[in-house]
């Protein structure tokens, strides 16, 4: 029999549709972040650093990149004889075959996986937040309060509270009430979507709610536990925690990394983040280059100017190009004499010589104004941009584009140009 005190279940099946073309072919947890990392590296590394060696990763939307990234878990030391990392996709059984219809439903469908480890506690995580957290401390809190459910929370500005699940707790942290995205919040204690359940409480709730369509932790499991009089506690977390669910928050969180003393510091020796970076080779900064206020990953070769930007592995920046306030993901090649400002460029894209991204126009996006905006120009993975064209702000471009797609060599601000065929 295998016995683990606490195992983690990491929900990584979401699309993250507000990241637009960045999540066209990959699930949000697999989107690159901070140069060499992917978003899922943060919760996964937190698990390892907190001494959790058994992690189930639940996948559903476009799992290929996640699967190859995680593999057997070597970068996180999760290649274990007992436990380690296991990818848990939806599956068919003889009574049913259904997708994961909600966060709690996904966990319910993997009851057998959890049972294997005879856990006393189960940690529920989502794969789309950037933070450093010692889950062991949260478990200590859970035990000290003899809690059955502990919800990790943080104080948010009152005016933003209506975007979150809000907990109302007494001085000891005991949750007396909670509201999902309340119009008039009674507290600013927002749930971070991180829960510790005592196994019996989790099993009882999931089994009782098994026929609940779209069964969700915030909407169904917590209310069930409250009705049944379970001990619910709010664990207050005060460190850095960022939801990178929108292009703006994603861009901002990346930009914060280049500060002299970043709020989220990757360089601390005792809380390392691990990733499957297959690039070992160093980076080369040429005699013509200028790199300032930026973080640059292994294998990059830079001949142009890079300022206030985050560059992934193996990025190439040609001579005479000037890149400011941008995120360039791994494998992307930027030609010579380009001018790029406030752009997010996906992986393995190719940008021709003399291309201008951003800088021009101010119209809102014509197709998805709620996704693309804030003056950002967003290019999807494996996009090809021909030479000597200009793309205005608030635009999204993806796939192989040719000179014919650019009238007078221009794509106006707010354009939406998505081609199915990619490089």
């Amino acid at each position: 029999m295998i016995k683990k005190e606490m195992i983690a279940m990491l929900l990584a099946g979401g699309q993250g549709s507000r990241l637009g073309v960045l999540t066209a072919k990959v699930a949000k947890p697999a989107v690159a972040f901070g140069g060499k990392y992917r978003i899922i590296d943060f919760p996964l590394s937190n698990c390892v650093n907190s001494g959790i060696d058994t992690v189930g990763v639940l996948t559903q939307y476009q799992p290929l990149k996640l699967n190859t990234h995680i593999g057997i878990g070597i970068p996180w030391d999760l290649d274990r004889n007992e436990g380690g990392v296991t990818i848990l996709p939806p599956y068919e059984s003889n009574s049913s075959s259904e997708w994961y219809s909600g966060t709690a439903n996904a966990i319910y469908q993997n009851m057998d996986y959890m049972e294997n480890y005879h856990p006393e506690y189960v940690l529920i995580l989502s794969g789309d937040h950037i933070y450093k957290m010692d889950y062991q401390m949260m478990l200590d809190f859970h035990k000290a309060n003899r809690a059955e459910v502990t919800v990790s929370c943080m104080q948010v500005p009152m005016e933003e509270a209506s975007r979150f699940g809000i907990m109302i707790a007494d001085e000891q942290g005991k949750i007396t009430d909670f509201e999902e995205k309340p119009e008039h919040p009674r507290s600013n204690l927002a749930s971070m979507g991180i829960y510790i359940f005592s196994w019996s409480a989790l099993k009882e709730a999931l089994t009782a709610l098994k026929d609940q369509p779209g069964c969700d932790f915030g909407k169904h499991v917590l209310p069930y536990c409250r009705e049944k009089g379970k001990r619910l506690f709010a664990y207050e977390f005060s460190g850095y925690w960022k939801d990178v669910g929108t292009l703006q928050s994603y861009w901002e969180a990346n930009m914060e990394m280049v500060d002299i003393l970043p709020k989220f510091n990757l360089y601390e020796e005792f809380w390392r983040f691990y990733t499957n970076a297959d690039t070992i080779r160093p980076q080369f900064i040429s005699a013509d280059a200028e790199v300032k206020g930026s973080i640059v990953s292994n294998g990059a070769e830079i001949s142009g100017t890079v300022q206030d930007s985050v560059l992934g592995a193996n990025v190439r920046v040609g001579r005479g190009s000037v890149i400011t306030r941008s995120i360039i993901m791994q494998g992307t090649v930027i030609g010579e004499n380009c001018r790029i400002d406030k752009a997010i460029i996906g992986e393995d894209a190719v940008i021709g010589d003399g291309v201008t991204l951003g800088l021009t126009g101010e119209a809102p996006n014509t197709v998805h104004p709620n996704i693309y905006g804030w003056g950002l120009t967003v290019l999807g993975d494996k996009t090809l941009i021909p030479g000597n064209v200009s793309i205005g702000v608030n635009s999204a471009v993806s796939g192989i584009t040719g000179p014919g797609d650019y009238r007078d060599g221009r794509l106006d601000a707010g354009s939406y140009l998505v081609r199915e065929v990619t490089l």
Partner: protein
Amino acid sequence: MRALGIILAGGNSSRMGRLTDSRAIAAMPVAGSYRCIDFALSNMTNSSIQRVAVLTQYNARSLNEHLMSAKWWNFGRKHGGLFIFTPTETSRNASWYRGTADAISQNLDWLKQCHEPYVVIASGDGVYKLDYNEVLQYHIRKNADITLVCTDAGKEAHRFGVVTMNADGRVTDFQEKPLEAESSIVSIGVYVVRRHLLIELLEEADRENRFDFVNDILIRYRKHKKIYGYFMDSYWRNISTVESYYETNMDFLKPSVRRLFLDEYPKITSRVDDFPPAKYNRNCSVRNSLISDGCILNGTVENSVLFRDVYVGDNCIIRNSVIMNGVYIGDNSVIENCIVESRGTIAPDSRYIGENETEVIVEKNNRYEYF
């Protein structure tokens, strides 16, 4: 691949100075992210050799740390894999490896147990990229007893084993470090030989108390055995002196060298460290330099190679230097034409300038005083 690999990584060279005070030459950091032995090891794995023995002796611990896990070179296999042989005392033998041939002889049991028909022997101090399959095919085609890989070393030839070959490629003469080199073709210390023949030759040498592979096998048997030379014309450097170490690192600032080792398939692999991306702060200025992950840069860096996790303070000037991993350089320091030993701490306002030759800096200050 029908060969097993042996990497000779036990040697030291007095001309490495303080750089090998606490590490083997094969463990010397090269090109920002690698160790010297990674080149031979990667060549082995990229040539689909599945069983490799690394023979260590001098400062063996530095290599053991690097080779702690075989998985990075794809050697973490159920069958074959990576073997590390450091001298041990046995009932028959209580000596160190007395030479390259003796090093293999002392592990003859292992060599006999293997089933691969051929053996590729490589030294752990070479920086080059080579598909050993090509050498093996040449060896078979020439019906050779021993094939050695050679290259043109130009004016440096006298530092190595100088090879004379006939038109067919057969080695007619071999002189180890001659006063005057008759040709500029030198052996790079990579040999292909049939396993049974190697066992035979080693047993013979052992009976006669001969311990050196070059003198007691290659040179001694050069007329009796068919020894062929396989010519390699791509980049090759041997790390055995402070200057050659410095030059090899500086070579990686050249596009052609980077292309060969870093861009072209197959890759050179190494142990993975988990450092974050390099961070270029707003007042830094970096030109024509190789930078590795984990570095935090504030001052000026020019024509230099920085290994992992190097901190360069404000207003520093680093020129034409090799800064090994984990070095902290305090504010306002000037370092030119130097090699800075790993994990060193350079006090603020320091000045190190190698005037006529490359200076090796070993500074173990307490860096926490400078925060």
